[in-house]
C-alpha cells in the first residue's frame, strides 16, 4: 500500500511537469494582461521541435533550445497580433493552437514519414533520469529514505527545473521591480503608461518569458517523459495548465498545487483499485470516460466557487490603446 502510494506520488510529479512549466508561463502572460489560450500550441510545437532537433543533433539540450525557440516564435506571433495590432487575443491563441496541431504533423510526415511520429530518440538525445546524491544510502532510513529515493530522486533534470521555476516565478512576479510593472500593466495599463513605462514593451517581455516556459513544457513531453513526438502529443495539457493557473488565482504556488492535484487525478485514474472503488457508483461502461474527464470536472467545480472567486487581472484581454 505504502509502495503504491509512493509510486502514485512519483507519477504525479512526472505528469505535473508540463503543467507546471505551462502554468508559470501563463501566469507571466496573463499577469501582464495578455490572455494565453495558446499554451497548448506552444507545448505541441515545443514537443515536436525538441524531438526533431534532438534527433538531428543527438543532443537533448539542443532540442530544448529549439523548443524554447518555437515557444518564443509562437508567443511573439501572439504578441504581434494582440499587442501591436490589437487583435482579439482569444482568436490569436486559437489560431496558434490550430496552426501547431497541423504543422507538427505535416512536418513530421514530410521529414520522417512515420505517420506524424518522429523517430525514437537514443539515450543521449533525451533527458534521462538522474539519481540525486546519497539516494541509495538514505534508502534505508524509514519514510524519509523512501520519499527521497522514490519521489524526489530519479527524475530528469527538467523536472527539477520545472519546480525551480515556481519560486523563481513567484520572486519575479511579487518581489522584483519588473514584477511590479508586470502586475500593474495587467491591472491598469493606463496608470503604467502615465508613469512613463511602455505598456507594450512590458507585455512583450512577459510574452518572451511565456514563450520560453511554453516551449520547455513541450520539450519535456517528447525528450524526457517519452522519447519521440507523436501527433497530438499535448492532448489538452495546455488547457489543463490554464485551468490550474486560474484555480491558483494567477499565483505561482497555488497554481503549482493545482497542477499537482490535477496530475494526481491523472496518476490514479488508471489504477485498478480506483476502478474497483468507483465501479459501484458509476456505470462500468462509462467509468473510463468518467475517469478521463475527472480532472476537468474538478476544474469546473473549483472554478464554480470552491476556491472562492478567481479574480483575473483587471485589464486582461484588452489591447492597450490611448485613443478611445
Amino acid at each position, binding site marked *: 500500500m505504502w509502495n503504491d502510494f509512493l509510486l502514485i506520488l512519483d507519477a504525479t510529479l512526472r505528469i505535473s511537469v508540463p503543467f507546471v512549466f505551462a502554468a508559470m508561463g501563463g501566469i507571466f502572460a496573463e499577469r501582464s494582461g495578455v490572455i494565453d489560450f495558446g499554451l497548448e500550441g506552444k507545448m505541441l510545437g515545443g514537443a515536436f521541435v525538441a524531438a526533431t532537433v534532438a534527433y538531428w543533433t543527438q543532443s537533448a539540450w539542443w532540442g530544448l533550445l529549439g523548443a524554447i525557440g518555437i515557444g518564443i516564435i509562437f508567443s511573439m506571433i501572439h504578441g504581434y497580433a494582440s499587442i501591436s495590432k490589437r487583435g482579439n487575443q482569444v482568436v490569436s491563441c486559437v489560431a496558434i493552437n490550430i496552426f501547431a496541431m497541423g504543422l507538427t504533423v505535416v512536418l513530421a510526415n514530410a521529414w520522417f514519414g512515420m505517420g506524424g511520429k518522429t523517430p525514437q530518440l537514443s539515450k543521449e538525445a533525451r533527458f534521462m533520469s538522474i539519481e540525486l546524491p546519497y539516494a541509495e544510502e538514505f534508502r534505508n532510513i524509514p519514510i524519509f529514505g523512501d520519499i527521497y529515493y522514490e519521489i524526489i530522486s530519479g527524475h530528469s533534470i527538467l523536472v527539477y527545473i520545472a519546480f525551480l521555476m515556481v519560486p523563481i516565478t513567484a520572486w519575479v512576479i*511579487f*518581489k*522584483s*521591480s*519588473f*514584477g*511590479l*510593472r508586470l*502586475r*500593474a500593466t495587467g*491591472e*491598469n495599463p*493606463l*496608470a*503604467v*503608461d*502615465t*508613469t*512613463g*513605462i511602455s505598456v507594450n514593451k512590458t507585455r512583450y517581455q512577459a510574452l518572451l518569458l511565456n514563450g520560453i516556459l511554453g516551449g520547455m513544457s513541450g520539450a519535456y513531453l517528447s525528450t524526457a517523459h517519452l522519447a519521440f513526438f507523436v501527433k497530438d502529443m499535448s492532448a489538452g495539457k495546455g488547457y489543463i495548465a490554464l485551468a490550474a493557473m486560474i484555480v491558483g488565482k494567477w499565483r505561482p504556488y497555488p497554481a503549482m498545487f493545482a497542477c499537482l492535484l490535477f496530475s494526481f487525478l491523472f496518476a490514479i485514474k488508471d489504477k485498478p483499485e480506483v476502478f474497483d472503488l468507483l465501479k459501484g457508483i458509476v456505470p462500468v461502461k462509462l467509468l473510463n470516460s468518467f475517469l478521463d474527464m475527472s480532472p476537468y470536472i474538478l476544474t469546473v467545480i473549483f472554478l464554480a466557487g470552491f476556491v472562492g472567486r478567481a479574480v483575473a487581472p*483587471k485589464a486582461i484581454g484588452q489591447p492597450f490603446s*490611448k*485613443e478611445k
Partner: protein
Amino acid sequence: MSALAIELTGINKNFGNVCANKDVSLKVESGTIHGIIGENGAGKSTLMSILYGFYQADSGTISVQDKSMQIQNAHDAIDAGIGMVHQHFMLVDTFTVLENVVLGTETGYSLKKSLEASALELQRLEKEYHLEVGIDSVINTLPVGLQQRVEILKALYRGADILILDEPTGVLTPQEADHLFRVLSELREQGKTVILITHKLREIMAITDNVSVMRQGEMVAHLKTAETNQEELAELMVGRKVLLQVDKAPAKPGKPVLTVEHLDFTDDSGVHRVKDVSFNVRSGEIVGIAGVSGNGQSELLAAITGIQPLQKGQLKINSETIRPDMRADAADMRRFGMAHVPEDRQRMGLVTSFSAQENSILGYHNDPAYNGLFEMDRDAILSTCQHGMEHYDVRPNNLNLRASLFSGGNQQKLVVARELERDPELLVIGQPTRGVDIGAIEFIHRQIIAMRDAGKAVLLVSVELDEILSLSDRILVMFAGQIMGEVQASSANERDIGLLMAGISKEAT
C-alpha cells in the same frame, strides 16, 4: 510679469474629422494657479493630454520653463517637471500607496530596495504638503479623496514643478474640495505652478490667479481672475448670455406619488449598497438626492426603476404597491406611471448605434400605437420622434441620424424628450446634465421644473451639488447607502449638505 512655466503656441489636434484643439495658445506664469475653463468637449483635457505627452499635437510648439521641447510620452513630461492628476485616477487598485508611487521609478532588480528607499521620501512629502494617506494602505480601501492625494503625491515624488489637475473636485465633497484648494495654495507658495482644469465657475473664482477660457476647441479669452466674474466667464464659455440662476415658483406639493419603504440592496459581489432607505416624493415637488458619487445612489435608482429586482422593502407608486415577490421590471414600472431618464445615457438611455427615431420609442416599442399587424408602424414612430425633436430642440433635426452622432447635450435631450412626452405621473431622473453643455443644461432644467409645475412628482439624483440646490424643493443626502438627513431647499446651505455628504450627521456636530 514673472517667468513662464508653460507656453503653448498654435496647437492643433484632430481626431478623425473632429477638431479637438484649433490653433490654441496658452501662457502659464510660474508660481501661479492657472485655471482653464470650458464646457465638456471644449478641448481642455485634450490640450492637457498633449502637454503631458499622452497625445501628440498635429502642429504647434510647446515650451516648458522657457525651453522649447518635444513631449513624446509621459516620460518626457515627467522629465520636464510636469505632473498630472487625471480625472480618472491612474492608480493600480490592488497595490499599496507606496507601490503606486514607486511604479515607474524603481531601480535595480529587487523591488524591496526601491520600496525601502522611497518610503522615507514619501513620508516626508506627506507631511510637508499635508497629504497624509498612510503609505502602506491598499488603494481600493481608500476613499476617493485620499486616492486623489496619492495622485498628487505621485506627481510630487517625481519632482513635478508644474502640476496639472483635470476636474479634480468632481469626486469630492465640498469640504474635501476645500482641503484640496488649501493644498494647492500651499504648493503655489512653495513656488510650484498649478494648472486647474474645470467646468465649475465657482472653483475658478475661488482659487485661480489667471484663467483661460476654451470653447469648441479654441481658446477664447485669457483673463486675470480678479478682473472678471462668473457671468462674464459663463458667457465666454457658451458664447452667449446664460442664466446661472434657475427661476422657479414655490412648490405646491400634493399627495405622495412615490413612497419608498425600507429599501435594501446588496450587489453581486455582496456589498451592501443601499441600507434601509425610506422617503417619499409628492406630486408637484422635486426631491433631490445629493451625495458623492458611489454612495449607493446608482443602486437606489436601479432598484426603484426596476432595472435591478427589488430585494427588500417596498415601493408605492400612486395606489400600486410593489413588493420584491412581484419581480417587477422596468417595463412594469413604466406601466405604473414612472418615466426614467437614466444616469448614463450612452449605456442605459440609448442604443447609440440606432437612429434617433428608433431611440425615440425605446422602452415603449411594445405600445400598440407603434405596432401594426406584422411590422412596426413607421409613420407613428416618425411622428413621435419628429414631435419630440422639435419640442425639445434637438439638433440636428435629423430623424435618421445615429444616436452616437449627436452631441452629449442633444443625446440627453433625445432621452428626456422620450420620457417626458409620455406625460408620466412620476419622473425619476439621474444625473440629468452630466457631460451636457451649459445651453442644454438650462433647457433641461426648465423642462424638469415645468414637469413639477404641472403637478408631477420628480425624483432627481445628481452628484452636482449646484444642480441639486437650484432645482430641488427637498434635499436628501446619501452617504454609504444611507439617507444621512433631509434638508429643506429654502434653508439649505452648502456647508451643511457637505457635512452630510461626508457622513457627518447634524446630531454629531
